């Protein structure tokens, strides 16, 4: 089966998004971030020593998984019903709420995605194919005011340059981004009012539920041992948040 194949190969191919703290690439090209670190620990326990990461657009991850181009997605791709239909998720790993990166003091007072829908001048940036885009569209933000931003750094830049009024990502991602930029004219507003807290899991191809199940077993042990918390909490994630919920709940949550 799939796990044996991976063991033989000695590596597992994962999709990541290059969005700290979920996923990151160091100057040396080494993959880090909370999601790949957890995956690395679990796969090591399963007997697969190496990770081989490809950086993908969020929108391209699921097609890549379906096309068999990667074995798993460990990128902070939050569970949502239609995604749960498309892929096989593990139990939750990283949880985070949605946030907005906007000018300090939030002069226009944006608090929810609806606020953007209601202000005919407001322009919101979000990654293409991400949760935030979906939530904003559902809240009624029209396409032409919802700017698809190719990556987080571009989002930051576009807020700084005043091209968009706010850029939406999970809280920790924005905190990390803002901290790195050192820009005191911006702030992170969190959580976005009315937006649920989401959790990601490692996502597998629907055909590979065996692999997913094996992953879940080792993930549970990791959570049990406290190792899980030691990996993700330095990145700012809460281990408790992930442990206190489960896949069924998250997959049912719109």
């Amino acid at each position, binding site marked *: 089966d799939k796990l044996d194949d991976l063991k033989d190969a000695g590596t597992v191919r994962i999709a990541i998004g290059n969005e700290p703290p979920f996923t990151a690439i160091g100057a040396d090209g080494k993959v880090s971030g909370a999601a790949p670190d957890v995956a690395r620990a679990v796969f090591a326990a399963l007997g697969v020593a190496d990770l081989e990461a490809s*950086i993908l657009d969020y929108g391209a991850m699921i097609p890549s998984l*379906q096309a068999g181009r990667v074995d798993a997605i460990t990128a902070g791709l939050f569970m949502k019903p239609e995604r749960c239909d498309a892929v096989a998720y593990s139990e939750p790993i990283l949880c985070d709420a949605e946030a907005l990166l906007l000018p300090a003091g939030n002069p226009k007072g944006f608090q929810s995605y609806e606020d953007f829908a209601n202000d005919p001048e407001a322009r919101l940036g979000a990654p293409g194919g991400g949760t935030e885009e979906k939530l904003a569209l559902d809240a009624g933000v029209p396409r032409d005011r919802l700017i698809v931003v190719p990556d987080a*750094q571009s989002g930051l830049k576009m807020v700084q340059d005043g091209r968009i009024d706010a850029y939406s990502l999970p809280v920790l991602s924005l905190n990390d981004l803002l901290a790195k930029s050192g820009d005191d004219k911006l702030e992170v507003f969190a959580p976005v009012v009315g937006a649920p807290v989401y959790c990601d899991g490692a996502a597998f191809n629907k055909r590979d539920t065996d692999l997913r199940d094996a992953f879940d077993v080792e993930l549970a042990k990791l959570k049990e041992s406290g190792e899980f918390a030691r990996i993700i909490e330095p990145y700012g994630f809460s281990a408790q948040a992930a442990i206190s919920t489960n896949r069924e709940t998250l997959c049912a949550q719109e």
Partner: protein
Amino acid sequence: MGDWSGYLTLILQGAWVTIKLTLMGSALALVVAFVAGLGRISRLAALRWLSTAYIEFFRGTSIFVQLFWIYFVLPMTGLWAPTPMQAGVLALGLNVGAYGAEVVRGAILAVPRDQYEACIAVNLTRFQRMRHVILPQALPLMLPTFGNNAIELLKATSVVSLISLADMTFQAQVVRSQTGSTLLPFVTILVLYFAMSSVLSLAIRSYERRVTRGLDGVR
């Protein structure tokens, strides 16, 4: 910012990917250009038709569309799931190859009719005519345009960053998101691209000089 040398290494790794893409893409383009170019002037209507369809299709649609099609759509047909590198080489090679095919065809038709007739008079077969007489004379005519095509291909490699192949443009994006500096990585790669295309055009020009020197006085 402190780790700039590390980031430079990352960009140089990307540069290597760009160079590989350019070389492999050009190699594929060259092969395809000859196959399709010869197909265009084949006696067999089916071959002619096929080559024309290929050329018009790949010249008619955008390379981005071709790239996305090969990378995302082709796997879903269940036929084959190319890696980003394979998809990049394939898209670049097929796209530029379509332009090259017209160059091949034009150069072959530019060889004077006299040469065909001399071949018949010494009783060469069709294949021998092409291989020993026509192509050797057509090649120097193709080179300048091939050179331009190779530079276009080099520039087009940057689009593979959109399918997350870690070429130079992509690595610049990575560095940018790691360091928060936009200016430095982009200026670096602009200079590197320019250096590469300059090297390419110099190389082609000197090769061209060598080849045409042999044919001194022919035309």
